[in-house]
């Protein structure tokens, strides 16, 4: 079928397909090697050196890891991150699903209603951070609204007890539509016949939800769980723009701690060591979730 010629055309179909597939993936792979894997390996190497960006790096063994471990700010920051991650993602899992269920119902004007919920996904993160910073201002909208129900004026972002919850609220508010779209897509891929069959068998809406929707939605649910935790772990811009990690470090999440160590104190090696700890944490967390996922019978 194929003319035997030298070069590309001369190869067997199988070999050619092998090469073709590899060549399709190659540009993306090279890019990730240059901008993700190589920097990662560099960061790992750097975590064993003392480096201040000016003088050449000096090998220091595990000194950076010891310094990070003995730094009380790192421990504080780790727990801030954990609180933020779960504080944001657990409400997201449920509220995003609730939103998707609401938007999956038949109702007049559904395309417009969906648009109103989903288009904020397209909003720039910086704009979101600035708008909320304005709203949390002591003279801002949040206090005014709460003042009308008798709550006193609070400087939300400058009070230790309220700064982190204030940031968590923004995270949730921003995450619901994003994960709502993903849930909605999952809901739409469940064939209608399944629910019809359940109804014929006498299942009410609640039973049908528990025994049909949830099991069939499991892959989506677990995807949302992993992605929401990882994206909450990566939060950086909001603390940077709104609180600069304050007051008293109560909003200094780990990525902000790393940024500060590297670019405010010029301790590159220590920042790299902290990065490695964060990466290991993310990796372990994802692994646990994937394990649970497999046990849940979803692959």
């Amino acid at each position, binding site marked *: 079928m194929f003319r035997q010629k030298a070069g590309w055309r001369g190869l067997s179909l199988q070999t050619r397909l092998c090469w073709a597939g590899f060549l399709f993936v190659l540009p993306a792979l090279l890019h990730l090697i240059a901008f993700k894997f190589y920097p990662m390996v560099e960061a790992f190497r750097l975590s064993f050196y003392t480096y201040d960006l000016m003088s050449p790096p000096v090998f220091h063994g595990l000194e950076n890891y010891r310094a990070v471990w003995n730094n009380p700010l790192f421990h504080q920051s780790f727990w801030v991150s954990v609180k933020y991650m779960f504080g944001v993602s657990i409400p997201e899992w449920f509220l995003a699903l609730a939103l998707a269920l609401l938007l999956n119902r038949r109702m007049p004007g559904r395309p417009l209603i969906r648009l109103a919920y*989903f288009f904020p996904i*397209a909003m720039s993160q910086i704009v979101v951070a600035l708008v909320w910073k304005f709203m949390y201002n002591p003279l801002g909208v949040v206090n005014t609204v709460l003042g009308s129900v008798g709550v006193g004026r609070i400087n939300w972002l400058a009070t230790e007890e309220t700064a982190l919850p204030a940031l968590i609220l923004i995270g949730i508010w921003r995450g619901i539509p994003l994960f709502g779209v993903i849930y909605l897509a999952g809901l739409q891929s469940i064939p209608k016949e399944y629910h019809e069959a359940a109804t014929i068998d006498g299942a009410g809406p609640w039973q049908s939800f528990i025994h049909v929707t949830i099991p069939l939605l499991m892959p989506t649910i677990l995807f949302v769980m992993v992605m929401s935790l990882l994206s909450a772990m990566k939060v950086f811009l909001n603390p940077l723009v709104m609180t600069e990690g304050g007051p008293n470090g109560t909003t200094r999440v780990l990525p902000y701690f790393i940024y500060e160590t590297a670019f405010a104190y010029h301790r590159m090696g220590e920042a790299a060591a902290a990065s490695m700890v964060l990466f290991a944490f993310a990796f372990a967390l994802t692994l646990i979730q994937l394990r649970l996922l497999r046990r849940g019978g979803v692959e």
Partner: protein
Amino acid sequence: MSRKALMSWGGRLVTLLTIAGIGLTLLPYFWMLSSSLKTGSEVFELPIRWLPREPQWSNYPDALSRGAFGVYFFNSTLVALAVMAGNLLFCSLAGYGLAKFRFPYRELSFRAILSTLMLPLEIVLVPTFLVVRGLGLVNNYGGLIVPLAVDAFGIFLMRQYIKDLPDSLIEAARLDGCSEHGIFWRIILPNCTPALGALALLTFRDAVIAMIPTAIIFLFFQRAFVRGIALSGLKE
């Protein structure tokens, strides 16, 4: 009241709640819009003014003339478009390669690609800067575009979508003598527009100015957008 009538009233109530919820979602944006037409003191006035007394339309020309707004606008648009184009091209290429071909270490490559999703950008800021500098991309558009031109999420999305396209489509084109890159451009790309649309929206989102066009595109293509995500099926 009969059970049926009760159900339909319940349904209407839920619809009303759904519509009311829009208020919570959009309130911050509404407030931003209304503040953009207020005087400085009106913004913090008590009791709260939801609408400006007299719209200060001059705020807009004032803001636009402060700094080199035109340049910033141009920069944002250019960078956002280039990043989007890079993602559309490279993620669909890689997604196609991973979905429809067999080659050594394919699964390993795919897992390695997915693992980069766990990496906060800030973590590798310094080494990334060194790479950018090594490529001579400091202080030009390339430095903003190239590091973001491929994203693992996009590759994942495209792979899942292309996986569901029938193999027979590709084999028929191959039998007709279509070259491998010809198959990609003429068969694969035209058949995955919903996924490409979803990817375009998600990668374009960090350009502020993109908001209104994005809203319009979403209104018209939301079926395709949601389907794009649905079909790329989070099923493995």
